């Protein structure tokens, strides 16, 4: 069996508004569009994914919050209806997905070997969270690639940002080891928004884009600073700034997916490709790609 590898990582945020705006048949709610820049960003990411042809997609979602350890979906097929508890008016999605249980078990075992608490979720009635579903739908609406779903342990909130993200880095290392031993060609999806300051009331027409803009100018500036560093491949600097970014921009990367992904990829100092940026109820969202298969990773 050839050695498995991580072929790419995507920053792939999960505002349910994007699914709502697209009007896929799986979602009950109907819209008149909206958030086009972000949806076009995902269209570009979809083309990249098509070219990469991965065996499996791994997604770490901040909306499957676990207290005791890091959990992995462990049922071969899951189906049901996932209604977003925050935006039920927008997201009522009938999902059906295939889980790469073998790889999930390997990730869990590696996590335990590194001293983390890892648990396999075996309940067939489990309702998959909207973060996992939105990210997966937006990156691959065909749902024809098996997935591994990881929970977000609440350690960055329960312990401290630094201690929690250290755990996420270990989880990334465990994920990488499991992928290498599996022989799979894997793509990682970090389901995170950047600046997370948001409006507290929804417009009467949610997709009325005349109401959409960054909630916080300072948060927007932080997003641009981080994105520009990522575009230049200055990963080390980004992670040095991460605690301040999280603190000042209320960034959702605190929940761990971003750190998990970069740790698994070995914190590559390569330029990330920005597919697009946009706000959703005021939060900052970037769709970005790190293609590890490119022959040259020279910084622009």
């Amino acid at each position: 069996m050839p050695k498995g590898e991580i072929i790419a990582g995507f920053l792939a945020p999960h505002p349910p508004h994007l699914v709502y705006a697209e009007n896929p048949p799986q979602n009950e709610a109907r819209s008149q569009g909206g958030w086009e820049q972000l949806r076009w960003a995902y269209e570009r990411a979809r083309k990249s994914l098509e070219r990469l042809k991965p065996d499996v997609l791994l997604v770490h979602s901040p909306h499957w919050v676990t207290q005791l350890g890091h959990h992995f979906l462990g049922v071969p097929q899951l189906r049901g209806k996932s209604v977003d508890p925050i935006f039920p008016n927008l997201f009522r999605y009938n999902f059906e997905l295939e889980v790469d249980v073998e790889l999930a078990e390997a990730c869990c075992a590696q996590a335990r070997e590194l001293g983390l608490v890892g648990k396999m979720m075996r309940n067939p009635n489990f309702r998959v969270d909207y973060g996992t579903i939105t990210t997966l739908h937006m990156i691959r609406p065909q749902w024809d690639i098996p997935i591994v779903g990881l929970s977000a342990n609440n350690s960055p909130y329960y312990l401290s940002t630094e201690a929690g993200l250290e755990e996420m880095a270990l989880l990334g290392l465990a994920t990488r080891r499991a992928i290498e031993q599996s022989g799979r060609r894997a793509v990682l999806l970090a389901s995170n928004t950047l600046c997370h300051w948001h409006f507290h009331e929804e417009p009467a027409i949610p997709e009325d884009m005349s109401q959409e803009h960054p909630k916080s100018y300072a948060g927007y500036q932080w997003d641009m600073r981080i994105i520009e560093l990522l575009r230049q491949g200055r990963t080390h600097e980004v992670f040095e700034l991460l605690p301040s970014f999280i603190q000042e921009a209320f960034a959702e990367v605190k929940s761990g997916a971003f750190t998990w992904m970069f740790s698994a990829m070995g914190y590559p100092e390569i330029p990330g490709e920005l597919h697009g940026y946009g706000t959703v109820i005021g939060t900052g969202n970037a769709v970005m790609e790190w293609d590890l298969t490119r022959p040259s990773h020279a910084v622009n």
Partner: protein
Amino acid sequence: MPLVAAVLVPGSPLHLLRPDNPPWAPLANAYHSAGALLAAANPEVLLVYSTQWLAVLDELWQTRARVQGLHVDENWYEYGDLPFDIAIDTTLAAACIEGTASLGVRSKGVDYDGFPIDTGTLVANHFLNPHGKLRLVIASNNLYHDWQTTQQLGAVAARAAEGLGRRYAVVGIGGLSGTIFREEIDLASDHIASPTDDRLNRELLDCLRTGPADRVQTFCAGYAPAARADMGMKHLAWIMGALGDHYRGAQVLAYGPSYGSGAAVVNFHC
């Protein structure tokens, strides 16, 4: 007086799904006792606030006449499913939504098939409304609301119930101290993880027994951060707001652990 009962109860599914585990049995038994007390008080409707129904935009209220389904807890899925069939007092819920405008709080109804009712509400409904005869009003925990706002929401709900002539009981669902075990433990050895939390929990319960109401509020302001209390004890604020001048102290039916965190079943004298 249409207010007939008020209880503070835990929202963890562990006490429902593993009631025979020795550290959890007293809480499960007390939960059943609270259910019997409620039945004797004969309310028509339960005014429910659970720390586990999180909202960030607006204050959400369940407005679907009947909510049914099968819920699996995202943390404790291995211990079983939570089937549910709950009737909602939609008229009263609408009155609550209308009533919050006076607080400057925008409210919205939630009426969607498949909406994920939170674990805490389902656990409480199972113990307190085992035959499903009582209708519920269910309010969300908006993360940006503080103690005072939540207290006012409880008062609004109580006024709305009184305005419609309902016999009602108030239910606040949530835990006490928040320190948990972050490693796997032998369930039979569960206990309050932190001795400091244990002391603070007992002081809180003593305070609830005797009051008065302003002392409870003052105590909670210090207790909540010190004990990492569940959502700043906003489920207690809901109860205190609904009780208002009717607060007469309380009886602690049980106190114990929930994987290291604190939990109690408390019956308020009405």
